[in-house]
C-alpha cells in the first residue's frame, strides 16, 4: 500500500466526515426554519444574517452547559452511550459512493472511501448498531422513563429492520450485486430503481423513518409519555451528541435512499455533460446532483415531521408486522416472478 493511496483516502475520509458534520449542524437550523415556515412563522433569525450562525450558538450553548452525571447511573456506559450513537451514525458514510471517479492531474480518484462488495450489508450492520447507543444510554441512566424509551427504540428498530431488509431483497433480485457502487452505476441516466421498485422504495422509506427515530415514529422521544425519552438524564454536549447523531443518521439514510433508489449521482443528460466538461468537472456535477437529492430527502424528513402525528405503540407494531412485512414479501414474489418471466422470454 503506497503512501499516496493512504493520503488520498485520508483526505477523502476527512472531507466526508466534515461534510456530514456540517450538514448535520445545518440540519438543526433547517429543521427549525422548515418548521417555522410550515407554521407561518419565521424561525431563528437573530444570530447572523437570517440566523445562519444559530448552529454555532447552539453548539457553544451545549458546551457551556453544566454536565450532570446521575450518581445512580452506570458511569462508564452513561458516557459511552452518546459516543457510540455518534460513532455508529458517522461510519455509515464509508461505503456510500459520492460520485463517479474523478480525474485530478492525470490520476483517477474514486469518490468512495471503500467499495466493499457487501456495501448494502455493511449499511444494514451499521444501522442496526445505531440502536446500541440509544439502548446503552437509556439503560445506564437508571431512569424508568429512559429504560422504557430504550426498550421502545430497540423493539421498533428490530421490527422495522426486517421489513427494510425484505424490501431491499427485491432490489437485489434486480441488481444482482450488493456493492453500492455497482448498484448506483446500473442506474445510469434515467434508469433509476425507484421506477422499477416504487413499492420497495415506499417500504424502505417508511422503515428509514423508523430506523432514524424520526416522526411519525419518534416514540423513543415521546415527551408526553416519557419526558425526554432515552436522553432524559443527559445534559450538556452528551445530549448534543444524541441530537447530532439523529441528524447524521437522517443524512446517511437520505444518502442511502438516494443511492439505492433515486440514482445516486446519475441524472438525465449526464453523458452529454461528461462529453463536454471532461473527467474532472463532470463527476463534480454528479456529486452536486447527489447532494441535491440528499437535501431534498432531508427536507422531506422534516416536512413529514411537521405534518404527521406520532404513532401509538400498538399502531407502530401493527404497521410494521402486519402491514409492511407482508407487503415486502409480496413485493419480493412479484419481482421474482417478473424477472423469471423476462429472463425466460
Amino acid at each position: 500500500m503506497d503512501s499516496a493511496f493512504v493520503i488520498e483516502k485520508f483526505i477523502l475520509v476527512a472531507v466526508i466526515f466534515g461534510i456530514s458534520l456540517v450538514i448535520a449542524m445545518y440540519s438543526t437550523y433547517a429543521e427549525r426554519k422548515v418548521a417555522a415556515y410550515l407554521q407561518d412563522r419565521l424561525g431563528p433569525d437573530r444570530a447572523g444574517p437570517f440566523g445562519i450562525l444559530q448552529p454555532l450558538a447552539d453548539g457553544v450553548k451545549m458546551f457551556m452547559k453544566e454536565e450532570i452525571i446521575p450518581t445512580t447511573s452506570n458511569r462508564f456506559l452513561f458516557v459511552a452511550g452518546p459516543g457510540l450513537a455518534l460513532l455508529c451514525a458517522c461510519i455509515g458514510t464509508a461505503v456510500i459512493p459520492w460520485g463517479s471517479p474523478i480525474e485530478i492531474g492525470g490520476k483517477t480518484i474514486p469518490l468512495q472511501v471503500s467499495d466493499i462488495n457487501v456495501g448494502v450489508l455493511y449499511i444494514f450492520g451499521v444501522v442496526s448498531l445505531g440502536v446500541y447507543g440509544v439502548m446503552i444510554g437509556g439503560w445506564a441512566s437508571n431512569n424508568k422513563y429512559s429504560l422504557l424509551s430504550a426498550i421502545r427504540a430497540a423493539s421498533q428498530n428490530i421490527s422495522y429492520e426486517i421489513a427494510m431488509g425484505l424490501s431491499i431483497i427485491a432490489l437485489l433480485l434486480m441488481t444482482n450485486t450488493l456493492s453500492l457502487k455497482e448498484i448506483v452505476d446500473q442506474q445510469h441516466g434515467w434508469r433509476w430503481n425507484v421506477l422499477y421498485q416504487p413499492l420497495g422504495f415506499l417500504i424502505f422509506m417508511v422503515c428509514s423513518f423508523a430506523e432514524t427515530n424520526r416522526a411519525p415514529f419518534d416514540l423513543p422521544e415521546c415527551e408526553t409519555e416519557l419526558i425526554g425519552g432515552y436522553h432524559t438524564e443527559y445534559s450538556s454536549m452528551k445530549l448534543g451528541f444524541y441530537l447530532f447523531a439523529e441528524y447524521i443518521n437522517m443524512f446517511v439514510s437520505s444518502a442511502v435512499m438516494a443511492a439505492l433508489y433515486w440514482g445516486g449521482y446519475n441524472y438525465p443528460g449526464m453523458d452529454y455533460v461528461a462529453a463536454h466538461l471532461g473527467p474532472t468537472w463532470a463527476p463534480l456535477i454528479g456529486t452536486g446532483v447527489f447532494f441535491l437529492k440528499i437535501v431534498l430527502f432531508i427536507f422531506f424528513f422534516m416536512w413529514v415531521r411537521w405534518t404527521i402525528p406520532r404513532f401509538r405503540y400498538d399502531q407502530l407494531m401493527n404497521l410494521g408486522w402486519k402491514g409492511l412485512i407482508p407487503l415486502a414479501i409480496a413485493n419480493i414474489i412479484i419481482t421474482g416472478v417478473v424477472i423469471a418471466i423476462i429472463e425466460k422470454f
Partner: protein
Amino acid sequence: MESLSNKKKVLEQKPLSFMERMYLPAIAKGMGITISHLFKKEATVRYPEVEREFSTNFRGMHSLKRDENGKERCTACGLCALSCPAEAITMIAAERKPEEKHLYREEKYAATYEINMLRCIFCGLCEEACPKEAIYLDGPIVPADYLRKDFIYGKDKLVEAPLEIKK
C-alpha cells in the same frame, strides 16, 4: 329518548376502511396542507425592529400631563392612588412656593409621584379617577429591565416633556 334540543349527535366509530388503513391518502392530504403554508405570509412581527400598531384604546405607560402653559396639572389629590386596584401609585404632596408658579398649575403639587410598573395592571382606573386630566396611559409598552427597583417610575420618567415655547 328523543332529544328536545335536536343538537345531539351520535358518534359512530366504524372500523377503518382499507383506504384509511393504508394511511397514505390521508398523509398525502396532510402534506399538501402543510406545504401550502410554506407559501403563506408569516404572521411574525420582528419586534425590536418593527412594532405592531396599537389599537386606539391601547393602555400603555402612564404620562403626567402639562397644561397649555407647560405647568404640571397634577395636584396630588391622591384619587388615582385610591382608585388603583393594584396599589401601584404613591405620591407625596407639597405646597407650591410663589417662585414656582410657572411650574405647577395649582397651589398643591406632587413632590414625588411613583408608579410601580410591576404592580400596575394597566386597567386605566387612575385615568378615569383623575379630576384634573393629569394622568393618561397613552405611552408605549413598559420596557423590560433587570432589577425590581428600576420598575418604580418616578416623575423623571412619567412627566411629559415640557412644551416647546413658540415665539
